[in-house]
């Protein structure tokens, strides 16, 4: 689902390492600035590490039946579907869908998702996509908490 990256190599790849990310595409910051991308990246990574769930973020069109499309996308979002959470934002349709797997739904009940969605839509309506997403992620990861099984890894 991610856009195919246009590879324009500057020969930064070596025998042991891949090419630098910045060499893979020239328009990485066409939607968001690098600063905003860094905020998104940190929010996704830190909430995933903190909770042990896997938060992914889809930004794009969701078709006519947004819920069905979002659940379909969720099915392709990785190997750990029960512990996954997909936030699908369609700015063109002004819709945001949050899909949680079975195990994730026990830790983030639908009511908590609705609250996070409410805070996201508030920011989105004001034109602040990144801020809304970061705040929604923060709310959901706060709700999910830090499971004891992960505690020895990060302390």
């Amino acid at each position, binding site marked *: 689902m991610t856009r195919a990256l246009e590879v324009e190599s500057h020969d930064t790849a070596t025998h042991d390492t891949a090419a630098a990310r910045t060499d893979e595409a020239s328009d990485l910051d066409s939607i968001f600035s690098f600063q905003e991308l860094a905020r998104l990246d940190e929010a996704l990574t830190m909430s995933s590490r903190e909770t042990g769930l896997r938060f992914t973020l889809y930004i794009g069109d969701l078709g006519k039946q947004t819920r069905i499309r979002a659940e379909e996308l969720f099915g392709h979002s990785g190997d750990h579907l029960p512990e996954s959470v997909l936030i699908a934002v369609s700015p063109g349709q002004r819709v945001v*869908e949050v899909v949680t797997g079975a195990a994730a739904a026990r830790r983030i009940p*639908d009511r908590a998702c609705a609250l996070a969605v409410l805070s996201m839509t508030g920011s989105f309506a004001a034109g602040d996509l990144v801020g809304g997403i970061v705040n929604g992620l923060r709310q959901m990861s706060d709700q999910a908490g830090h499971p004891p099984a992960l505690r020895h890894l990060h302390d």
Partner: protein
Amino acid sequence: MTVAETILVFAGVPLAIIVLLALLIFLPGGRKRVRYKSGQPWDHAPIWYEPHPDGAAAGHGSHAALPAGSSAPVTAGPLGGARGTW
């Protein structure tokens, strides 16, 4: 101060400042990324952001790779979530 000097100072200088600011603002190439406003169409290709996998620092995280060969699709069970519009 002659009439010409007066005009130059009191009309020419403000005008020069206004023209300079207008050039700085409206000259092309300043800002190519349009800021999203609610209600605008979204013409970008769909994009999917993922968290970084647990790196070397995290050791055996909870997202360790599945053993090869488990091709059976993992069912996510009943899905939860929420929906919102703005």
